[in-house]
């Protein structure tokens, strides 16, 4: 579904991503975890084709992101960290716009059913800015999935959501996994990674430090002194492993 090999991203003299490699299979939720500035968004932007990497290979559903960009993008659905749409358009018009861009024929009935599925039947005539954070996330996710892509990229999708909206989104992400979509998720929430992700990669200073299932990561670092020091309640969590591996110093 997604194969990233030896990815390197540079901004001038600053190397944001160093030899990052990972792959995602169909029906898998893969989490990319890291502190601020670790290289998560740069890696994701390279996969999305928003920046040109210095070197490395990225293939989406077998298509090279650099040389077969439009084919690769047609096979991925993207929810950006801060999604915004033209403020003059209403929700129905935004969904119609993206359906057209992805070549999806949208009948009135299908549009109604999409809005119904995300509990926004009455909000079709509203503007995106008039929706709550959770409703906006649901619209963004619907648009990311409108063409039923094989790969779904979610950049910090639950940031700013209340617990109910966050749980609801987790359920939607898990349902996507069960339908066979491959999902790449970036998040700051270790609780989210532990609850939702099948595998996670911890990235720091542009490099992947460790990749495995959340439970295996916890088990394999249980006796690491830095992880034990990070533990607050005696029980080792993914957050303790994360802090143990990336340090407790604040990042900007």
């Amino acid at each position, binding site marked *: 579904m997604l194969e990233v090999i030896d990815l390197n991203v540079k*901004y*001038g003299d600053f190397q944001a991503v160093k030899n990052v490699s990972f792959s995602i299979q169909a029906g898998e939720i893969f989490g990319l975890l890291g502190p601020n500035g670790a290289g998560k968004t740069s890696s994701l932007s390279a996969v*999305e*084709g*928003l920046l040109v990497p210095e070197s490395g290979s990225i293939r989406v*559903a*077998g298509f090279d992101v650099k040389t077969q960009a*439009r*084919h690769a*993008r*047609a*096979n*991925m659905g*993207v929810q*950006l960290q*801060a*999604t*915004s*749409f*033209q*403020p*003059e*358009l209403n929700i129905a*018009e935004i969904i*119609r*716009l*993206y*359906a*057209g*861009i*992805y*070549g999806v024929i949208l009948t009135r009935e299908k549009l109604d059913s999409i809005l119904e599925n995300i509990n926004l039947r009455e909000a079709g005539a509203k503007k995106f800015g008039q929706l709550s954070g959770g409703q906006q996330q649901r619209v963004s996710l619907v648009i990311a999935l409108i*063409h*039923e*892509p*094989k790969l779904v990229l979610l950049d910090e999708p639950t940031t700013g959501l209340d617990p109910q909206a966050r749980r609801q989104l987790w359920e939607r992400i898990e349902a996507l996994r069960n339908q066979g979509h491959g999902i790449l998720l970036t998040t700051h929430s270790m609780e989210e990674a532990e609850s939702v992700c099948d595998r996670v990669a911890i990235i720091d200073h542009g490099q992947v430090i460790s990749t495995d299932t959340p439970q295996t990561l916890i088990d394999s670092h249980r006796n690491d002194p830095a992880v034990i020091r990070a533990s607050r309640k005696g029980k080792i969590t993914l957050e303790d492993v994360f802090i143990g591996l990336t340090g407790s110093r604040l990042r900007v």
Partner: protein
Amino acid sequence: MQNIPPTSAIFTSLLRADLITQWRNRKSFMLILIVPVVILFSWKSVIDERGGAFVLGTCITLGLITIGLMGYSNSVARDRDKGIFQRLRVAPLPAWSIMTSRLVVQMLMILLLTSTVFIAGFYFDHISLSAGGYLLGYVTALVGGAVYLGIGQMIVGLIKNAETVHSTSRLVYFVFIMVGMFGELGILGTPIGNLVKWSPYGTVKHILASSFQSGSWDLSATRALLVTLGYAIIFSVLGIRWFKWTPSEKG
């Protein structure tokens, strides 16, 4: 495997959305149409003195400046700032289609503006042109509009911050209108008058006024047309070269 959607379907969707956006952006819409008509009304005395073609040319030029500097540049800067372009760019569409759709909407606005000025001129000031004059008027309005869209593109290419684009385009708009109008009327002296004559304001207004009367197209109008085309090409090329899709994008 998902196939790439046909470019025609993508373009139709973009164009529909951009047309709705333009239509709902009433403030900009009205500014583009009302300012030239107000000038047309207030310049009744100038019609007797300088002729209907001169006044129509001036009014359309003012509208073209508004489209390029107040409409196009500000909407592009806002959408870049809000990440609207980024969302579009992760979709399987060619990047050129995003801007082309917007330019098509602006060209339609130019045709609407030109029609509005022609109709207002005919009904309120009894300015009538030959069929060829009207037709050439539309063509030269599009050529002139390209200059101001190019200037707008250059501003959003040079300046990344939406607020700064907004204030800069207002300033340039004010300078063009004030210096252009008063300069060509001779109020600011001969040197400024000559400068205005070969400025984007002067050449666009010259080709517009000349195109309205088929007999008045002379060598100086041809020169003005060539300079106008030169401005349009230079501003557009520089604007496209400098343009970045995000405010923070590295060169």
